[in-house]
């Protein structure tokens, strides 16, 4: 039996979604849980006072902002 690749699952899901919009509910949950998790991580990393300055220092360290 052929082993399915990640992109095969993506294709199967899209084909099913085309005729069944109830799958959007799961997708909404996935997107919003990711947003919530990432928000919580960075709020914990950089307290709300001076958030921008701390965030910019972090971005410089990971190379996303010029030093």
């Amino acid at each position, binding site marked *: 039996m052929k082993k399915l690749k990640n992109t095969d699952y993506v294709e199967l899901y*899209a084909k099913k979604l085309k005729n069944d*919009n109830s799958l959007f509910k799961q997708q909404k949950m996935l997107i919003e849980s990711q947003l919530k998790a990432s928000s919580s991580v960075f709020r914990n990393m950089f307290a709300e006072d001076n958030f921008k300055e701390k965030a910019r220092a972090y971005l410089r360290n990971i190379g996303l902002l010029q030093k």
Partner: protein
Amino acid sequence: MQKAYKVEDDAIIINRDLTELDLFVRKFLEVLKKHSDYLIVSGFVSISTGRARGTEDIDVLVPIMDKSKFGSLLKELQNNGFWCYQGDKAEEVYGYVRNFSNVRFAKINEMYPNIEFVPIDETKKAKFFEFTHPQKIRVKDFEFKAPPIEFEILYKEMVLAGEKDIADAKHLRALFSELIKNEKFKEFKKIIMQDLR
């Protein structure tokens, strides 16, 4: 059980509820549209049409603007709860825009999601083509401009070509199999090839 989308007056209507990600993008576009035209490209196009993955940034193509116009946009974004990674003043940020470097905006006290603001002009052939040939996508009362679906698929397959991009392209090909046209692939491939040379 209903279909995922339909086409109405040249707009693709996606049959789902709005997500927090849509609300974030809509809020940004409400401000941006007062100052400039735009085109949303890449991951958000796939995600807004049902691709089951998260994203950290939403890529928005914006025609290059002068410093004064950019300053007004920056100020209004800040007044509407956004901050810019690159700086708080137009003097600090505009150098990036002028050099066609992307700048990012997020909501105050948040890092993600963020808008990746991508300055373009007519010298960026492929980007400028998609910008001038938008496809409207609507979810409830949220409407935005995206590239033609065939263009988005090819750009992901030919230019970006990462694992995530190939999967996004596969999603779009399968979901919109009844909409996409082979002759458009041929036309768009030539345009994208110009940028790859």
